[in-house]
């Protein structure tokens, strides 16, 4: 029998690794991948809490998060493709059109 807190700590580990990858990585696709990792970590906390309270509401939340993640992945990757088409780079340091 595993305490629910251990599942939450596992989710915190995955979320922190996602934050670190989000900040460190310079490739825009890899940054997007680390956002997906953070969404997955949050889904794990939802499922753990749903199990703890013996309710399916948390699982419904995870279902909606999956739908939003699918929509976000489709739109985000389309934006990445159109950025690459105009700027010929995937490095976030060189995508600074709105900075100047």
């Amino acid at each position, binding site marked *: 029998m595993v305490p629910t807190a251990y599942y939450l700590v596992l989710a915190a580990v995955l979320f922190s690794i996602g934050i670190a*990858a989000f900040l460190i990585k310079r*490739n825009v696709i890899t940054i997007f991948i680390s956002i997906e990792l953070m969404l997955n970590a949050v889904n794990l906390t939802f499922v753990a809490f749903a199990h703890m309270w013996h309710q399916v509401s948390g699982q419904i939340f995870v279902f909606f998060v999956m739908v939003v993640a699918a929509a976000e*992945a489709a739109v985000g990757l389309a934006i990445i493709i159109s950025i690459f088409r105009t700027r010929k780079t995937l490095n976030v340091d060189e995508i600074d059109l709105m900075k100047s």
Partner: protein
Amino acid sequence: MQPALFIIFGGLAVAGALNLLFQRHPINSALSLVVVMMSLAVLYWSLGAEFLAAAQVIVYSGAIMVLFVFVIMLLNAGEEEHTHGSRAAYTVGIPGAAAIFCLLSFVFLSERDALKTANVGGDLGNGVDNISAVSSMLFTRQLLPFEVTSILILVAILGAVVLARKEQ
């Protein structure tokens, strides 16, 4: 069985996430994220969410990651190079992520007794399986949000087509 599953697949998930962090090539990061998602599916199953375990495998590691791998292949993304921005991110990112991890795990572990223990399999009792519980909730009380998500998916598809279209 639960502690063994938790240790094996939790360890696999953390190892995959660390591999994602340390690999330089985007395709390696994408494939290690598939490992993380598959082990999370096993953890969902052990927490009594069979529907979500199947949806995780089909939607995330099936559809979304195939989309990622397609885009990486299409754009021919190579290894990323280290720049000035990445050095600044190292000095800020690692301590910041460690601080957030310490805060979260301190809260969770200090409330460890209030959070109960998790048993493998059916958590709902009274003979209701997970899929029928989820679907009866989804198609009665959550029907409107469920229909709104289909409109969201439709808008996202149209947006993706418009954004990725070649400009004339």
